């Protein structure tokens, strides 16, 4: 629409109000709800482990506290270190408009990239975070970067291949069409390729959200992976960084839910967008319960085994990329 | 008049009947007897050709059968003297039992009228011959046995795809039936033949799949090496030829054959171990035979003559190198010279058989190679002819140069000539190869 207006030579850009509202709903749902799911997940896990655990709003408190604090930047750090959290945050915001994380229909910016592009944007954000960590000039972050880089070889490959597999099942790389296709064709949902792609993506999600058996969160030197990247950050920058990771987890989880596990139930329209929020909430609760069960029933893997774990996910995704070719 | 099929049965079963003597610990002598019977039977079978029923024998098959049975006879006589006092009676009996099984499986693979069972026969030769290589049980021979088993069987499993494809296309595996089908041209069959080239080519020692061949030939005991090089490789080549006949992808075969000749000649030019050198020479001769099979016409006749003459020549070469190994207890060529001064028969056998396998004029291999070259010339394949001629020349020079260094020069006084069969068999094998050439030249003239 915008493009056609430009073509006619009209400089005035018409704005579709409904679409704008839907876009804003989608964006703000992601921004505001993502810490809540982390909080719920932590609380539930604590309950299962028979602790009282923090409040489910603890991530919000953390963010608020950090926003009030001052950021310290070490002398050896460069400018990339300072600006990278904002860039990564912006990329995650863009991704939240690209894939069907709340609303199962396109909004503004959806046309920027397709599914595959979404995967590449995840990679870009990860790369920028690594770059920033290297720029801080600290030994600890360098160690974390090395770990993240060696794991990302398989993790990002898996992400891209899984999206390929989905694209081959549904013959499109538009995530919204994929979602609609799966809703309309339950048989596609049950194909071998889809099931196995879902398994690979679940494995990836467990890694990316830093849960057991591949726990990568926390500041324990021996096992830290993700948190090593933000080791040198403080104050506002740390808050932005943390918020970015919350959004990333939400996005991956939403893709897992809406494309792989439970594609049904999403409503369209402005009103639908508002109804989608509780629907997503319910889906997330189901996912969190499942994850807590997984998390409490496995022991933690050694750091060096994480690569084994990810390579198996990679092999699964590649295998099922082939299966989707074979079985059609 | 006995039914021809029964005779062929007998051919395969005779070595197996001889196994009964294993119980009485007198297998060596019985084996020699059964081998002589098999040779006589093989010669007699010529009057019954062609046979097509359970078995499929043409005059080409007959040449291969004769080849297998004669080398079987030579090897079983030579082994008796070769292993005498080196192996215990029990080990010798085991050895002969395996030789009989090995020969029976080769004969089975040659005469059976079914591609699937031919494959089984070739696979069975791997099983029966594997333990023959490790007769000495040195660590190197164990490693070699293992390589032989695993490389060859992996290749043969690959070849099984081609059997499946042939069955898929023709709905039968009977050789005579498929070869008499009118229109056999199909891409599927072409793929099947190409897969067979890679798969069975592993067993023949075609270039990229040859790696087991020099190891196995150099580490196996001399009579076993003679069986391997003289008849096992031709048997596999025969099976490949049978598959090739269905729908020939000539160019592909020519490429692989020439690659085999080229690389075998290059490899053998820098060998330090005489058995390894002869192994690469076998590979070169197999390449030559494959080339002849691929181009057909005179080339096919040439290929069969090469194989026939080569089997005796190479048997002679390995028997005499067995004698040398006995005497010097080294496989290094540099530490042996002046053989002619004290071991006149063995060294002349070695010289004659190296002439035989490199194709010196009156020998049989020369006649065969000449026919193959003539066919290449007639087909206007001048570049191929040039390459092959150059590398055959290279092989000729390097083998004969090395052998003459062994044979001539200052002698070592402490060595003695072998007695009895150990010196007769190598010489007679070489002379048979010479006679084949002379007879062929006389016939053609």
């Amino acid at each position: 629409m915008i493009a056609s207006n430009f073509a006619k030579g009209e400089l005035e850009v018409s704005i579709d109000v409904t679409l704008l509202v839907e876009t804003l709903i989608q964006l703000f749902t992601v921004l505001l709800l993502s810490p809540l799911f982390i909080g719920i997940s932590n609380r539930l896990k604590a309950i299962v482990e028979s602790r009282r655990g923090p409040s489910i709003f603890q991530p919000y408190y953390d963010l608020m506290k950090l926003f009030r604090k001052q950021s310290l930047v070490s002398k050896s750090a460069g400018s990339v270190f300072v600006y990278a959290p904002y860039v990564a945050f912006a990329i995650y915001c863009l991704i939240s408009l690209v894939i069907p994380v709340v609303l199962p229909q396109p909004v503004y910016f959806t046309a920027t990239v397709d599914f595959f592009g979404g995967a590449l944007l995840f990679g870009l954000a990860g790369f920028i975070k690594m770059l920033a960590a290297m720029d801080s000039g600290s030994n600890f972050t360098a160690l974390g970067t090395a770990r993240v880089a060696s794991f990302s070889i398989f993790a990002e490959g898996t992400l891209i291949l899984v999206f390929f597999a989905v694209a081959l099942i549904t013959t499109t790389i538009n995530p919204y069409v994929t979602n609609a296709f799966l809703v309309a064709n339950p048989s596609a949902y049950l194909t071998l390729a889809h099931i196995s792609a879902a398994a690979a993506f679940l494995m990836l999600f467990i890694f990316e959200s830093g849960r057991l058996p591949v726990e990568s969160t926390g500041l324990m030197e021996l096992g830290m992976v993700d948190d090593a990247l933000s080791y040198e950050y403080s104050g506002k920058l740390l808050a932005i960084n943390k918020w970015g990771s919350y959004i990333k987890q939400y996005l991956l989880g939403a893709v897992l839910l809406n494309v792989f596990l439970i594609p049904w139930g999403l409503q369209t329209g402005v009103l639908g967008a508002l109804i989608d929020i509780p629907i997503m909430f319910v889906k997330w609760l189901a996912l969190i319960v499942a994850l807590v069960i997984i998390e409490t029933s496995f022991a933690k893997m050694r750091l060096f085994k994480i690569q084994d774990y990810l390579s198996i996910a990679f092999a699964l995704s590649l295998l099922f990329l082939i299966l989707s070719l074979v079985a059609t | 008049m006995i039914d021809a099929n029964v005779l062929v049965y007998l051919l395969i079963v005779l070595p197996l009947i001889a196994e009964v003597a294993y119980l009485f610990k007198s297998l060596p002598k019985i084996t020699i007897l059964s081998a002589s019977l098999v040779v006589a039977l093989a010669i007699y079978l010529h009057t019954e050709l062609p046979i097509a029923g359970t078995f499929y024998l043409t005059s080409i098959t007959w040449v291969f059968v004769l080849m297998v049975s004669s080398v079987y006879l030579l090897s079983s006589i030579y082994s008796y003297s070769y292993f005498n006092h080196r192996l215990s009676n029990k080990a010798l009996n085991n050895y002969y039992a395996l030789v009989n099984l090995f020969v029976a499986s080769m004969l089975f693979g040659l005469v059976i009228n079914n591609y699937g069972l031919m494959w089984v026969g070739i696979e069975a030769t791997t099983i029966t011959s594997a333990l023959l290589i490790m007769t000495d049980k040195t660590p190197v021979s164990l490693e070699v046995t293992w390589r032989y088993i695993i490389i060859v069987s992996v290749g043969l499993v690959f070849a099984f795809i081609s059997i499946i494809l042939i069955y898929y296309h023709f709905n039968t595996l009977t050789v005579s039936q498929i070869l008499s089908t009118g229109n056999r041209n199909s891409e599927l069959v072409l793929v099947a033949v190409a897969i067979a080239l890679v798969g069975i080519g592993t067993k023949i020692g075609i270039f990229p799949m040859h790696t087991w061949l020099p190891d196995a030939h150099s580490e196996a005991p001399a009579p076993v090496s003679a069986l391997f090089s003289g008849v096992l490789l031709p048997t596999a080549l025969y099976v490949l030829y049978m598959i090739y006949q269905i729908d020939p992808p000539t160019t592909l075969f020519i490429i692989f054959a020439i690659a085999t000749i080229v690389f075998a000649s290059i490899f053998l030019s820098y060998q330090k171990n005489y058995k390894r050198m002869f192994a690469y020479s076998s590979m070169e001769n197999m390449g030559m035979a494959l080339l002849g099979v691929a181009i057909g016409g005179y080339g096919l006749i040439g290929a069969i003559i090469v194989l026939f003459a080569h089997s005796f020549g190479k048997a002679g070469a390995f028997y005499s190198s067995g004698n040398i190994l006995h005497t010097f207890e080294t496989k290094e060529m540099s530490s042996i010279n002046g053989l002619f001064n004290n071991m006149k028969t063995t060294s002349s056998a070695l010289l004659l058989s190296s002439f035989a396998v490199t194709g010196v004029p009156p020998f049989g291999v020369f006649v065969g190679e000449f026919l193959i070259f003539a066919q290449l010339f007639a087909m206007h394949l001048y570049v191929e002819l040039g390459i092959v001629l150059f590398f055959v020349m290279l092989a000729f020079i390097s083998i004969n140069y090395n052998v003459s260094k062994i044979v001539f020069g200052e002698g070592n006084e402490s060595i003695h000539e072998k007695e009895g069969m150990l010196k007769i068999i190598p010489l007679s094998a070489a002379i048979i190869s010479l006679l084949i050439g002379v007879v062929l030249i006389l016939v053609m003239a």
Partner: protein
Amino acid sequence: MTFIAEIVYMLSAFTLLSAFFILLQPFIRSMIRGIVVQSVLIGLISFIMAYYLSSIDFVLLGILVIVLRGFLVSYLLERQLKKHSSLFRESTYGIPSTILMAIVVAIVGSFIVYFYVFYNLIVTVTIGTTSILLFAFMMMFLGIYIILSRKNTMTQIIGYVEEENSMVLMSIFLIPVPFIVEVTVFLDVITLVLIASVVAKEKLEHVELQELRG
């Protein structure tokens, strides 16, 4: 795609997964278990095909695979294992590099074979589409890769048995070869395993030898 075809595809996918399982195992006993599972799966596929095409050949083939390949071969290997405690575990190169190399060798190899060779041929398979042959090809290349990458005698025998299994799978999908041929092939493989375990008794690891260069 029919329901039966779906099931056959699923079982073939599990066969392939068992091939990956075998590839990644450092423990030889688990590898042997993997072979048993694989053979039983192939037997099941054969039984389903027997029902689908109402052909007795497939029933016999299935029984042969399960009894001879699945249990007899693994029994022979297990028996060998009992004598050598050193055979329990083999050091591997680690899962990530094994998977990467296996993907390069097996998957790329089978795709080249399939798309360059079989794609142009008009081949009708017994069930599903021609692409079902890819399962057999991938299993074959994985078997070859096991032989290439491991140095242990037992592991290499297992790789060989897996390669043979892939041939059975291929003949199920293309055309079951005559029964007499099939039986002799099975017997051949068993004797080969026997002979190979004789060698395994003498020599467990395989390394480069100076005498065998060039």
